[in-house]
Each structure stands twice: as C-alpha cells, then as structure tokens.
C-alpha cells in the first residue's frame, strides 16, 4: 500500500532505508497492549478476549530480584485466561490472536 506512517532510526532515510531500519511502520502490525500486571498469588488472569492472545511473562527466580527471560516459565494461555504457575509473575497480554 502506498500510504501510512513510518519512522526511521537516526541516520537512515525514511524514504529509502530497509524495513529493519525503521522504528515503526504502519505496514507492519504492532503488538497492542491489553493488560499488564503482576499476578500474586499464582493463578488465572482473565484477559477478557475471545481468543488465545499473545502474551509475555517473566517470573522471579529464588533470588527475588532475578527474573526469567520471556518464555522461561510455565504460564499457559487459553481463550479465557492466562494462568501463571509462580507467585509474582509479571505479565503482558496483547490484542493479538496467538492461536
């Protein structure tokens, strides 16, 4: 499409640079945040969507100031909830269907 919005990184010409050198472009779908938070105790977080959303989670390790990287915990998602397995798991839920 020949319309939209795009913003390049510093030092790149927005008219000619590669897509990878853009900060954003309306040509590509962006993850839109539905909800964020910390789940204590572990358990279900109702996301209010009608589909299984993309979600990111990060959980604390035994050393409470250390958190896992994305994908390194046992949180599961379905069309109603994401369900965390560890207390104080931080979550990010997006308006984007995963499955």
């Amino acid at each position, binding site marked *: 499409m020949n319309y939209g919005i795009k913003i390049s990184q510093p030092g790149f010409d927005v008219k000619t640079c590669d897509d990878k050198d853009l900060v954003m472009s309306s040509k590509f779908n962006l*993850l*839109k945040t539905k909800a964020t938070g910390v789940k204590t105790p572990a358990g279900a977080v109702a996301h209010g969507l009608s589909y299984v959303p993309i979600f990111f989670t990060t959980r604390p390790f035994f050393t409470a100031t250390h*958190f896992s*990287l994305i994908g*390194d915990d046992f949180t599961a998602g379905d069309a109603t909830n994401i369900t965390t397995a560890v207390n104080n798991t931080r979550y990010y839920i997006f308006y984007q269907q995963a499955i």
Partner: protein
Amino acid sequence: MANYGVKVTIDNKDISSTEPRDYVFNSAYGSVKVAKEPANKTHETIDVSAGGTATATIAHGLSFVPLVMLFTELKPGSGHWYQGGINVADPTDISGAVTLDGTSDSLTYVDSTNVKITYSNPTGGALTVKYYYFIFGDNG
C-alpha cells in the same frame, strides 16, 4: 483515553472500528518497544570452553527490570535458533550443543541492571555460540 491520537487500520477495516485487532497501530493502546539489541543488528558470540561455562553480561541501562527475549543457536552451525533462557535443544541438535541453566535460581536472568546469560558446554571441545537478544523498554 481522550478523543485524540493516531490510529491506522489493517486493510479493509474501517477507522471507526472498536476492535483492537483491526488496527496496525493505535495510540490508544501501548506497545512493546525494543530498547536495546546487539549493535548493527548482528548476533553476538561467546566462547565456551570444553566442559566449562561462560556468561555474557549485558547492561541494559534501564531503571526497571525489563522484558527480555533471547535466541541462541545452541548447536553452533546448526542454523537452529532456540528462544528463551532455559531452553533445551531438539534431540537432533543435542549432540554438540551448549545448555542453559533452568534451576530455581537460574544463571540466566534479568535484574534491574543487567541481563546475564550463562551457557554450559558439556562437550569435549570448545564452542563459539551465537546469540541474539531484544531488551524491551517495558516491564510487565
């Protein structure tokens, strides 16, 4: 949110839609932002000695614990990149691969200062491991 902002729909959707999935971008909703990734968007490498471990430390420069996404070519040269910090290679890639610590106090983690990534090399030869990370300017 007040009645102002920027929004762009996907093709064939009307700009008056109230369904968030109909938008490529909508300033009414937040979005994760990449705060840091390897220089020149080129993967990093780390040498791991035979039977040893090696740790990469990345100062993220943020004032909070960020979300971090990591990809590693666990078996050098395989071309297979695995996501996460406690991942296990597919059986076809286990031979000749590094591993990551997945215990309750993992050696791969993020805190309010750094991302620490520790690889173990159970093989009999030194390995040079490729990895790539995205540090998001968001903290969940």
